[in-house]
């Protein structure tokens, strides 16, 4: 029979996956994307320490902390989508022997301290401006897993099935799936390796991640180490040791009557397996607590030092970036603030209907790793979409209405006259002009040329990348969005700021720039005609 706890886990994981599936354009108004990510203490602490920003949804976190102080790490055992994923995948990776391989109660004590050290390291780095805490955030990791790996994988399967069995659809109209665009991501290989490692570690010990590594678990463990509801063992206990072996968190000490409350996730496995029914969870009488297994002073200092060092190294990478083609989503706040606030949850990449938003690899340093970067060659920014601005849980991308988003200039298209078919090869090509939704590209006659050549009116260009995406030049496009004149505002209206700068970005135009009705080529004919 399925336990209440497992049922809770399954329902909540289902809701989490549903949240991800529903994070698509059009985004349902009621979808609580922001609030869900506020559940993770690390996602709250990262931006707070590294940039002094309070992200929204603090109330959710306070509820969690209060509940944890009363109940202990119930979040880990009942709510956390990563924890549930690890629980569910355990039978897949555990092989034939499903028992706890490291069964001695003290065998993992040293390893257990790693999570506190990782927490200290992350906090130290964040304090110096490098936010790495999302690496240890179970919600972030679960979101990566489901949005960046699983969703594309199943989309790929469906799409392949559609082309394999497409004839079924054309003959009978019965094929029910129309996955349409399936997003894929540049860092897929890395991600698959990463999660393969995470799941494989599950084979060494159940919930390897939660036991030894999870910094969010460390915080919750400390907050909840004196809970009101505790495990109690009656005198019926025969010291058989079954609970110690079965406890997925190895939270039962050598004396099976004692509990490591920082580790216990209230899964109640011990209660279910006890042959004497000696285990109960209730208000404590005078039940002794195991001490906190915190790391020693020396190790703690080392972790802090390493955090500082990482902040230095990661920061150096950021300073060295200097890449004019690092394009951020529309409405991304100024870069330093953006890096500090971004939770790397991947929701903006998930919702992006053209797959333009990609997780950044390590090219731009640790600081930028996994932040969303816009890659026009993969997809352009749809004029009718403001999805990414509406799902960002941390304000790294501001919530923008469509008109505001239009003015949130991501960059400016620049033509490479060497490789442009018209400029460089005298070929009649107009694709960039044709596809520009904002009328920012115009073809103009040149005195010394047969063909009309494209020009970009930079004040009309919002950097959406349609031109770069559709440029027929092979490999790197001859017209590329550079972050020149990008607009990054932490507050205030993009429209007002843009108008002050003399920008004029609009989808609704009566005229193209610099275009006369009587333009003619050298042959005395309008563009496109020839003798």
């Amino acid at each position, binding site marked *: 029979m399925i336990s209440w706890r497992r049922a809770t886990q399954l329902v909540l994981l289902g809701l989490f996956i549903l949240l991800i599936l529903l994070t698509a354009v059009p985004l349902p108004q009621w979808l609580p994307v922001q609030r869900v990510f506020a559940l993770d203490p690390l996602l709250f602490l990262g931006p707070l320490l590294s940039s002094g920003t309070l992200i929204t949804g603090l109330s959710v976190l306070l509820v969690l902390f209060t509940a944890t102080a009363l109940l202990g790490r119930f979040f880990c055992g009942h709510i956390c989508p990563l924890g549930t994923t690890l629980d569910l995948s355990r039978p897949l990776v555990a092989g034939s022997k499903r028992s706890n391989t490291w069964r001695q109660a003290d065998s993992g004590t040293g390893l257990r301290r790693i999570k506190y050290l990782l927490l200290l390291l992350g906090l130290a780095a964040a304090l110096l401006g490098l936010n790495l805490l999302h690496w240890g955030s179970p919600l972030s990791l679960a979101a990566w897993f489901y949005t960046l790996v699983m969703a594309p994988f199943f989309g790929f399967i469906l799409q392949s099935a559609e*082309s394999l069995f497409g004839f079924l659809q054309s003959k009978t109209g019965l094929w029910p799936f129309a996955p349409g665009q399936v997003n894929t991501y540049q860092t897929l290989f890395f991600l698959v390796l990463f999660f393969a490692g995470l799941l494989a570690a599950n084979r060494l010990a159940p919930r390897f991640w939660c036991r030894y590594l999870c910094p969010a678990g460390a915080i919750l463990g400390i907050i909840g180490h004196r809970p009101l509801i505790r495990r109690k063992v009656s005198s019926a206990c025969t010291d058989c040791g079954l609970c110690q072996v079965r406890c997925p968190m190895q939270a039962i000490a050598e004396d099976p009557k004692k509990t490591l409350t920082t580790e216990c996730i209230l899964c109640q496995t011990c209660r279910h397996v006890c042959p004497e029914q000696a285990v109960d969870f209730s208000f404590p009488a005078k039940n002794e607590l195991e001490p906190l297994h915190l790391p020693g002073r020396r190790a703690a200092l080392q972790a802090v030092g390493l955090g500082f060092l990482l902040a230095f190294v990661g920061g150096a990478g950021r300073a060295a970036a200097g890449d004019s083609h690092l394009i951020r989503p529309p409405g991304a706040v100024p870069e330093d603030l953006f890096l500090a606030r971004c939770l790397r949850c991947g929701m903006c990449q998930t919702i992006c209907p053209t797959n333009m938003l990609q997780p950044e690899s390590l090219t731009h340093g640790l600081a930028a790793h996994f932040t969303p970067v816009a890659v026009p060659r993969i997809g352009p920014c749809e004029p009718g979409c403001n999805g990414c601005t509406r799902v960002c849980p941390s304000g790294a991308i501001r919530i923008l209405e469509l008109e505001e988003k239009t003015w949130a200039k991501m960059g400016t298209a620049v033509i490479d006259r060497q490789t442009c*078919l018209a400029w460089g090869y005298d070929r009649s*090509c107009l694709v960039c002009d044709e596809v*520009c939704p904002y009328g920012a590209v115009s073809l103009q006659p040149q005195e010394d040329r047969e063909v009309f050549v494209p020009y970009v009116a930079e004040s009309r260009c919002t950097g959406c990348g349609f031109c770069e995406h559709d440029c027929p030049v092979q490999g790197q496009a001859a017209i590329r969005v550079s972050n020149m004149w990008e607009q990054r505002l932490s507050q205030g209206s993009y429209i007002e700021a843009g108008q002050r700068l003399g920008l004029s970005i609009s989808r609704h135009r009566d005229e193209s720039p610099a275009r006369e009705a009587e*333009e003619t080529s050298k042959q005395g004919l309008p563009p496109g*005609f020839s003798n």
Partner: protein
Amino acid sequence: MKRVEQGLEQCRVKYQDTAGHFREVRVPSGEQLRRTEVMREVLEADVLIAAPVAKHHASGGVSLSMKGMMGLILNRGLFHYRYDLHTAIVDLCTLLKPKLTVIDASRALTTNGPSGPGKVVHPKTIVASKDMVAADAYVTNMVKWYGRSISPDKVKHIRLAHKRGLGRMDLENLNIKRLTL
């Protein structure tokens, strides 16, 4: 974003955007374009009917039924960077030759095509022909592009198509019927 078919009853728009939706075929009469990937649905269709709107096109001169065939293939970029655009359009039309062409010239974008914004005129005319070249030639002749009368032979792909016998642009020799509704 709204779905394309919203408001259209019993109508489903299919996205045909990945290579799986296309099949590579030979273009036997192609001069430059010898092979291309065409939408499977088009290749399997019983009949092909071209129904373009009338637009100016800064590379093609006009964008009518012939130029419109580029919408049915996977790799249009080649037309721009490898082949001569007009020759390749005619090559393609030897393969994708509609049984009937119906050009919507109720309105026509006469400048700054194909994307606009530009000057839109209202000829209020629908042109239909079994000869795609003749239909394109007729509309080219009828509409004033950039405010000027331009004969169909000034559009290179119409000129080439006529020369290669794909259809006719000599409007004066054609039997043209005009109906007013």
